[in-house]
């Protein structure tokens, strides 16, 4: 009987569904069968949260016909008794490139952000497609899909039955296709041709220069959403990609990101256009769980939890920073945390080094807080729902596709085995369902020799050996399939093997073979009784209890805190107070900060409930404002691939986890303008942040701040350092023409917009128009007087004024013209000689501009210098004799003015923001240290607390290092400690391509 069943199962692999009409001719006699099977006495999970014991599953034509306890079994059904076995709906993987053609080989890349190498301005794909090669909306996975049994097998072996396949290439990757993992023709395997639209922030194989930065990638998507809307209502252009883009919009939208911050960014972008993406994350979502939960988005999570770092060598350990160590520990808790928070997610096997690691990793998640029900949900129900296919997949109900697995018990148990994976009603046998019941001892006669054969362990995977005496045994290698067994062993130390083959019938085995000399012999084995299995010394249940993992920190890494600091009332007493107001510098004065604002400044203040700080011998100033900063920016500060990138927004790519934020707080900085770089004449839109360390990117932004944009002149934009660049402009003459051209076109664009006629929303011109409308303001990177003068003249011709020249190292030569124009100067104190256009730079520049009535600031453009801007301000006294009071304003009130924030920041005045620094010494002195830095009345940096945080870092590192060493010694795989130890720091001329996979 059992043999017959096996035979049937083998046959079933030829089955096609009955009476299905196909377009293909048949070579030979048609063989159509119903595939009617009844699986009885099984524990069936009809869905992730419903289990029926002793149930029957009836399938026909690749579909579920019935499931339940009282299913009538048709006589003609093949019955399979699954007593003691479990049936689950098979799993669905929504992030897969299964069946997709190999990706084209990497082509040499062109120049990145601008200035270096040859730029590729347009798509290299010929035809009526999108201008940008990274937008491959016209790509349809189903048109290129090929059944690939070799690739399907590993997925089937771990229980998957269907995948959403797509080509992982580009920012828009086109349509993904929903397919099963059976080996039939594509025609039957594809369940839905276009099942989803897939997107990412990687331009993939595109060799086009744009976008080279994340901010450019986001801008490109934003523009494409507008273009899609425009395309739908126009008739002047045929664009295959845009048409496809529009068609894709009704599908589920999947978005691949590199980390949780990118997930937040993608979701913010989606919100602008009414999309809630399904995020393919990387497993760090727990680091900003509240923010992600609030979006309502669903996630696809990989199970590639990081391996422990090999940190036995203390110097190696230095290469790994706290966030990497903590992520190693906390990553397996991610699914459990998301589930507990009610965040919807599915799992993918994508990202695993080997697909067979799947269950091991899944169990890690279960050991770390995920319930089995949640795990099953994430593998069946949720992915089916997310791809809109729950009517066909994801549970075992009448009418659904017969995709299910048969297991030996809970699929999540450590010794779980999947016997069969049935896909569309077809069985794929992973392990024989009917392993013989053969554990025991046997009289084993091989030729003329009598042995005692022992079969131990489990029926599915027994160990076989010949007992020589109580302590010695000879191992037998064996293989069993369909009632036939093959065995071999070395009877003595001659290394010559006896090789046998035979038939297993119940507990009597017999067959033929060759002995060690090659002579043909008969053999047999007859059951004699149980093998006297020695009780294995079970290891005491893991002697050490697993340590509880450490806390999640905000931000996630060194100097993060478990709880965000909050507002309090602070009274700083008896300090020297630099008001930056009419009162000037007050000796022995008090400052009261209440409700996030400066409440009072004066002598002998008092306030109930205030935390009093003794300021005796110390100084209090407004927080330092860095007018020119590139901290806290992700993946590229320049989108310099075109002469204008006015459409890009630094606000899209704020990196709230950048350690620079904390370091600069320790230098008394409270607010920074994050600028686009200086690779092109018209750069991107700036972001204004306060250094609210620990808060998320959105919460760093200064609400209500005026919009600014970075412009740039001179050597960078004309790409002087490249001998091969071809991008316009290459001279200062050309730079002027860029402006003249853009402002002219923006004016025309404005007219078109105002006319009420339909128009294509052009985010580039839209931004420039804002400048003309005096709704956005220019900060322009500049060096020599000719170009400075030129830009002022261009602005005057177009009826607006330049707000700020930054760097402005030759401002001293045209300070009178600047004052007349009304532009401010945000400069370096003393930089020069690093390139030709700064060879006439002088450290007296600030003083001279100041004397001519220009509002002067000193900025950093440098992560390091930003934490000692007070010292840079002092150089205005050293070089040119600016008064100390005015010099301090160069880094406080004056940048606030240049940023239009002086009503809120920059001085100590009742009602202004509580952005305050307590200094140990005279704030312009090299010896002064910021002891406390407040933003909005929140103490974000405190030198005493800093010592505690260092201590906490050291302790947490030490704990994790010990834990990783234990993991290594416990046999876990490790990875070399060669990772990141320091974050990337940007200057304004960094132009690498950041939009590609490494």
């Amino acid at each position, binding site marked *: 009987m059992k043999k017959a069943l096996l035979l049937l199962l083998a046959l079933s692999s030829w089955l096609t569904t009955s009476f299905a009409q196909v377009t293909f001719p048949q070579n030979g006699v048609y063989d159509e069968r119903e595939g009617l099977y009844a699986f009885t006495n099984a524990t069936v999970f009809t869905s992730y949260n419903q289990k029926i014991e002793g149930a029957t599953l009836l399938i026909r034509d690749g579909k579920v016909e019935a499931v339940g306890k009282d299913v009538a079994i048709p006589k003609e059904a093949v019955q399979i008794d699954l007593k003691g076995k479990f049936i689950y709906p098979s799993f669905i993987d929504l992030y897969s490139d299964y069946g997709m053609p190999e990706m084209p080989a990497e082509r040499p890349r062109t120049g990145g952000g601008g200035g270096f190498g040859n730029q590729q301005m347009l798509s290299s794909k010929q035809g009526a497609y999108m201008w940008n090669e990274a937008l491959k909306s016209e790509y349809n996975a189903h048109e290129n899909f090929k059944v690939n049994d070799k690739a399907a097998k590993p997925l089937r072996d771990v229980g998957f039955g269907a995948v959403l396949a797509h080509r992982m290439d580009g920012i828009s990757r086109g349509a993904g296709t929903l397919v099963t993992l059976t080996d039939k023709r594509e025609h039957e395997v594809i369940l839905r041709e276009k099942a989803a639209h897939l997107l990412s922030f990687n331009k993939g194989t595109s060799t086009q220069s744009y976008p080279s930065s994340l901010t450019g990638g986001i801008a490109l998507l934003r523009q494409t959403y507008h273009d899609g809307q425009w395309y739908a209502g126009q008739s002047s252009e045929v664009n295959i990609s845009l048409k496809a883009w529009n068609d894709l919009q009704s599908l589920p939208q999947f978005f691949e990101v590199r980390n949780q911050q990118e997930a937040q960014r993608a979701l913010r972008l989606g919100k602008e256009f009414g999309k809630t993406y399904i995020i393919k994350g990387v497993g760090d979502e727990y680091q900003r769980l509240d923010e992600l939960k609030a979006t309502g988005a669903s996630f696809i999570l990989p199970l590639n939890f990081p391996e422990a770092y090999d940190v036995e060598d203390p110097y190696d350990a230095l290469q790994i920073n706290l966030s990497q160590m903590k992520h190693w520990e906390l990553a397996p808790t991610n699914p459990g945390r998301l589930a507990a928070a009610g965040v919807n997610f599915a799992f993918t096997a994508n990202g695993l080094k080997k697909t067979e690691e799947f269950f091991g990793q899944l169990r890690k998640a279960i050991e770390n807080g995920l319930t089995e029900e949640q795990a099953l949900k994430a593998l069946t129900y949720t992915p089916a729902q997310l791809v809109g296919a729950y009517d066909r997949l994801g549970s075992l109900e009448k009418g659904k596709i017969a995709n299910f697995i048969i297991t030996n018990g809970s699929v999540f148990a450590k010794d779980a085995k999947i016997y069969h994976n049935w896909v569309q009603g077809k069985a794929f046998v992973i392990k024989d369902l009917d392993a013989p019941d053969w554990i025991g001892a046997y009289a084993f006669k091989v030729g003329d020799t009598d042995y005692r054969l022992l079969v131990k362990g489990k029926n599915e995977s027994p160990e076989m050996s010949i007992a020589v005496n109580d302590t010695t045994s000879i191992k037998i290698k064996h293989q069993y399939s369909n009632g036939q067994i093959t065995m071999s062993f070395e009877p003595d130390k001659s290394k010559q093997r006896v090789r046998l083959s035979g038939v297993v019938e119940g507990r009597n085995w017999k067959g033929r073979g060759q002995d060690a000399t090659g002579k043909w012999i008969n053999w047999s084995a007859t059951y004699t009784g149980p093998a006297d299995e020695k009780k294995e010394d079970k290891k005491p249940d893991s002697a050490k209890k697993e340590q509880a993992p450490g806390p999640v920190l905000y931000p996630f890494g060194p100097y993060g805190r478990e709880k965000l600091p909050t507002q309090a009332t602070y009274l700083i007493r008896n300090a020297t107070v630099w008001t930056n107001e009419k009162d000037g510098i007050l000796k022995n004065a008090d400052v009261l900060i209440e409700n996030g604002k400066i409440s009072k400044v004066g002598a002998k203040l008092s306030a109930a409930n205030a935390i009093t700080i003794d300021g005796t011998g110390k100084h209090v100033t407004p927080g330092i404002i860095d007018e020119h900063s590139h901290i806290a920016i992700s993946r590229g500060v320049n989108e310099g691939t075109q002469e204008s990138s006015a459409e890009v927004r630094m606000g899209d790519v704020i990196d709230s986890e950048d350690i620079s934020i*904390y370091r600069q707080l320790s230098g008394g900085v409270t607010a920074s303008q994050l600028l686009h770089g200086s690779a092109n004449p018209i750069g991107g839109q700036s972001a204004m942040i306060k250094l609210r360390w620990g808060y998320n990117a959105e919460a760093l932004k200064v609400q209500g701040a005026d919009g600014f944009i970075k412009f740039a002149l001179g050597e960078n934009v004309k790409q002087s350092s490249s001998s091969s660049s071809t991008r316009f402009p290459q001279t200062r003459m050309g730079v002027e023409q860029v402006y003249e051209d853009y402002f002219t076109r923006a004016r025309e664009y404005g007219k078109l917009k105002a006319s009420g006629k339909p128009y294509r929303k052009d985010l580039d011109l839209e931004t420039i128009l804002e400048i003309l409308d005096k709704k956005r303001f220019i900060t322009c990177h500049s060096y020599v007087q000719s170009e400075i003068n030129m830009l002022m003249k261009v602005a005057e011709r177009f009826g607006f004024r330049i707000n700020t020249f930054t760097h402005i190292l030759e401002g001293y030569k045209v300070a009178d013209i600047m004052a007349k124009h009304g532009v401010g100067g945000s400069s370096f104190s003393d930089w020069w000689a690093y390139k030709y256009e700064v060879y006439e730079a002088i450290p007296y520049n600030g003083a001279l501009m100041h004397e001519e009535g220009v509002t002067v600031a000193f900025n950093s453009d440098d992560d390091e210098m930003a934490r000692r801007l007070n010292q840079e301000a002092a150089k205005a006294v050293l070089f040119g004799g600016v008064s100390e009071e005015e010099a301090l304003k160069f880094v406080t009130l004056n940048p606030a003015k240049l940023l239009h924030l002086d009503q809120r920041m920059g001085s100590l005045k009742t009602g202004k923001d509580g952005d305050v620094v307590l200094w140990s010494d005279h704030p312009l002195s*090299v*010896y002064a240290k910021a002891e406390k830095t407040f933003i909005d009345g929140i103490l974000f940096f405190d030198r005493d607390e800093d010592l505690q945080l260092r201590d906490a870092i050291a302790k947490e590192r030490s704990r994790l290092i010990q834990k990783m060493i234990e993991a290594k010694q416990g046999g876990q795989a490790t990875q070399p400690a060669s990772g990141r130890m*320091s974050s990337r720091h940007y200057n304004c001329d960094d132009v690498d391509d950041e939009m590609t996979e490494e």
Partner: protein
Amino acid sequence: MLRYITTFICLFFAFSAMAQSPVPARAQSKPICITAATAHLGNGQVIDNALIAFENDKLTRVEAYQQGADFRNYEVVDAKGKHVYPGFIATNTTLGLVEIGAVRATNDNAETGTLNPSARSIIAYNTDSEVTPTVRSQGVLLAQITPQGGLVSGSSSVVQLDAWNWEDAAYATDIGLHLNWPARLSFSFFTGESTRNERYEQQIRDIEQLMEEAAAYARQGQPAVKNLKLEAMRGLFNKETKLYVSVNGARDITQAVLLGKKYGVSVVIVGGRDSWMLTDLLKENNVSVILGRTHSLPGRDDDDVDQPFKTPAMLHQAGVLFCISNDGFWQQRNLAFQAGHAVGYGLPYEAALSAITLNAAKILGIDKRAGTLENGKDATLFISEGDALDMRTSKVSCAFIQGRDIDLDNKQKVLYRKFKEKYSR
């Protein structure tokens, strides 16, 4: 009564639009004494009301000032309320080798190729650089002109910063070879991650082989075939010259120290970001350190936020011989502030001063002539209106190199006056 002769102090050229670097000063013609200043000797000592006298280029009297003393033969500089310092010494700098960073034609700091022990920075040193006067007007009067690039960059020399040509400028020539320790990790800007440097082992073998063969070569007095590269390394093995190793990581610093030990070479660690972790090793092996900028970021996200600020104090506390340096060329005018910043983080003031004077002189092997205000040493010193380590108070009013009263004007002051003039019209 004293005669106050101050006319020669702080010569200001009449307004001139020409941006010519100042003319080198004449040799000292008459004994000079500076009175009533606070003298910071550079060796840790301070004389509050001091008398500093020098004659024929050398310091003759460094002592407490007695009111009413007779200085009939001297030109007297009353420096009451002011401070006198030994000239600051910029170590590991490309001053005079680079005029404009991004203009390749003006760069003579890095020769092509990986092993250039015979390259000599001194002959490329440009005494007519417009940058140098801006540096010395902030008290930097001596500098170690240092080649860069490759694994072995060449030899450095010490120059004084007021000269007609490099021969005049030379203060101590070819004092050491500069080795750039290969990086184990290469940082990828694309990924923000460090990966292993695949060539690291080969590069280490190249260095070992070079040292091995140079040592063998040095053992023969008259080699049959002269090899310029190995010849240039001869001085290392009899300790006439030092091996300056640019290296930052703890493990690599250890390697550099072991290399010196193995070949009996005097090693100086340059950069030395992690040197604070290895103070015992450095002391036991008599290895000194030219620390990189105090004004730098911690090497690792997890580091103490002020690690680079307090590293000097930690080396001082541990008794390691170190000096403080600054990157680059024009930046050398901020050398003093690199030292001053460390004071806020535990380095005693006079030790901070030593870190840019006496200690630098010791490391460079010029401490018999420079680095302190002591009788018999070169009269290379300056007067500051206030504390010269603090940008708030630093104001160099006059400076002497080997007794010569140097012109503190520079291109930037000329431009300042030019545009002051513009706005006064």
